[in-house]
C-alpha cells in the first residue's frame, strides 16, 4: 500500500487543510491513489495505441522477413543506441526529480526536470539527424517524396515491401517523437511550477504522473530499438 505522507509528513486529519486537496476527495492519499491509477489506465490506452502499430509490424515482418531485415540495415545502430542511452539517462533524471520532491529538495526538483528536458531534446535532435539522412538516401515513402533506395536488395518488388517497413518506421518513431514533444511541454510547465515551490513531499502528484508517462515513452523506445534497428544486424 501507498504511504503518501512520507516520514515527516503531517497526519491524515491535516489533509483537509492542504491547499492541493480537491473538494471531492476525503484525503490526500485517496487523491494520490486516484491520480496514479488514472494515469496507469491512460498508459494502458497508450500500450494498446502503440500495440496496433506493433501488430502491423509483427504481421508484415512475418510475411516479409528478408526485406525487413535488409531495410533495417539502413538504420544507424550507433545513433539508435546512443538515443537509447539518452532516454535511459532521462528516465533516471525523471526518477531523481521525484526523489528530490520526496526529500523536500525543491531546487533539486527543478534541476533534474531541466536535465530531463535537455536529454529529451537531445533525443529529438538525434532523431532529426536520422530523418534527414533517410530523406537524403530516398528512403522515405509517401510524403510526395520519391522512394528510391540504392540498395540492390531493396529494388523492384522488394522495394514495395521495404516501403511497408519504412512507412511503419516513420509512423512508429514519429508517434514516439510526438509523445516526447508533448512530454517535454508538460515537463516545462512542471519545472516552472516546481520553481515556484508547488511540490514537496506532501504533494507531488503531477510529478509522479508525468514521470509515469515519461518512463512509458522510454519503454516504447526500448522495444522499438531492437525491432527496428537490430533486425538481422548479424547479416550486415
Amino acid at each position, binding site marked *: 500500500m501507498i504511504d503518501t505522507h512520507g516520514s515527516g509528513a503531517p497526519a491524515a486529519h491535516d489533509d483537509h487543510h492542504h491547499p492541493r486537496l480537491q473538494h471531492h476527495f476525503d484525503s490526500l492519499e485517496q487523491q494520490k491513489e486516484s491520480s496514479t491509477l488514472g494515469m496507469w489506465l491512460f498508459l494502458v490506452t497508450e500500450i494498446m495505441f502503440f500495440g496496433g502499430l506493433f501488430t502491423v509490424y509483427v504481421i508484415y515482418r512475418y510475411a516479409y522477413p528478408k526485406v525487413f531485415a535488409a531495410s533495417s540495415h539502413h538504420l544507424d545502430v550507433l545513433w539508435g543506441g546512443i538515443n537509447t542511452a539518452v532516454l535511459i539517462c532521462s528516465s533516471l533524471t525523471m526518477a531523481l526529480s521525484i526523489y528530490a520532491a520526496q526529500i523536500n529538495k525543491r531546487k533539486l526538483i527543478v534541476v533534474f526536470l531541466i536535465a530531463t528536458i535537455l536529454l529529451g531534446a537531445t533525443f529529438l535532435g538525434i532523431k532529426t539527424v536520422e530523418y534527414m539522412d533517410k530523406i537524403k538516401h530516398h528512403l522515405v515513402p509517401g510524403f510526395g517524396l520519391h522512394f528510391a533506395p540504392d540498395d540492390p536488395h531493396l529494388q*523492384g518488388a522488394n522495394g514495395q515491401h521495404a516501403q511497408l517497413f519504412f512507412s511503419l518506421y516513420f509512423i512508429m518513431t514519429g508517434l514516439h517523437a510526438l509523445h516526447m514533444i508533448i512530454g517535454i511541454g508538460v515537463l516545462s510547465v512542471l519545472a516552472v511550477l516546481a520553481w515556484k515551490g508547488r511540490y514537496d513531499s506532501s504533494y507531488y502528484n503531477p510529478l509522479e504522473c508525468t514521470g509515469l508517462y515519461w518512463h512509458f515513452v522510454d519503454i516504447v523506445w526500448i522495444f522499438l530499438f531492437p525491432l527496428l534497428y537490430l533486425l538481422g544486424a548479424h547479416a550486415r
Partner: protein
Amino acid sequence: MNPQLPLFPESASTLSPEVDALFIAWSAVSVFFTLLIACLILYFMVRYRRRSVDEVGLEEKSALWLEIAWSAIPLVIALAMFVWGTRVFFKLYRPPADAVEYYSVGKQWMWKFQHPDGHREINALHIPVGQPIKLKLTSEDVIHSFYVPAFRVKQDALPGRYTQVWFQATKPGTYHLFCAEYCGGEHSRMIGSIIVLEPRQYEEWLAGGPAGKSVVASGAELFNQLACQTCHVAAPNRPARGPALKGLFGSQVKIASGEMVIADDNYVRESILNPGTKLVAGYDPIMPTYQGQVSEEQLLQLISYIKSLAGDGGTQAPAEAPKP
C-alpha cells in the same frame, strides 16, 4: 410460393439444403427461447402484478441449481450448433476433387468470368447443372464479395490475393449474383446472374459464342510472349537459370531461407509479381518483377498454364509446350 412475398430463398445447390437445415434448426431454437421468455414475462406480469402501492416482492431465494442449469443448457445447445455449423462450413469450403476451375475477377462495378475453355462473360456465368465448379476469385481494385443466395455461398474477392468458392448447381434456372461487400458508388448494380443449364445446353451455349483460346493455352502463349522460357526451361547447351516449372505446382519447394512452402496459386502469383520474396533455394535473385505488366486475368492464365505443367495426370493435359 407467392412471388410477390417470398419468405424463403430458392434452393439450387447441393449444399443449400444443408445450410437450410441448420438455419431452420437454429430458428426453431430461437423461436422457442424467445417465446419461453416472452410467455414467462407475461405470466409473471399478470400473476405477480402489484396490488397495492406499498407492496414489496417476496424474499429472494438463491438457486444455484437454476444458475447452473440455465448456463449449461444454452452452452450445450450452442456447442452442438457450433459443431454442426462448422461441418457445414467445411463442406462449403472444400471443393470436391472433380471440381472444374473457373475464374472471376471483380472490379468496380462488374464481375468478369472466364470459363476453362476461354469463354469470357461479364456479370453472367453460364454453368452446367450437376458439375462441381470451383471459382477462383480476385479483385482489381477494392474488396468485393461473390454471393449467390440460391447456392448459399459467399466469398470476398480480395485485391492482391486469391480466394476460392465452390458450388454444384442442382437445377437449371437463373439465379441472382450479388456483390455483398460494399465497394463504392454502384455497389448495388454490381449484380448479375448465374445461369444454370443442362449439360447439353451448356455445350451448345459454349459452341455458340466465340470460344477464344482455353485459359491454359492463353497462359502458354503469354508465357512465350514474356519470354519466361529463356530462364525456366533448360536449353541443350546451358542449364536453366530459374527453377524448372514442370511438376512444380502443388509440390513442396525449398526456398532460400530454408523453409518449405507449397507451390500453390498464391505462391506462384507472388513469385511472378515479387520474385525475390520466396526465392527457390539455389537460384540467384535475377528474375525481374512482372508487377504492372500482367493483368489479374493474365496472371490467372499464367498460373493455370503452370498448373497444367504439374503433370500429375489430372484432367488438364499440358498444353502446347513452349518452344525453347
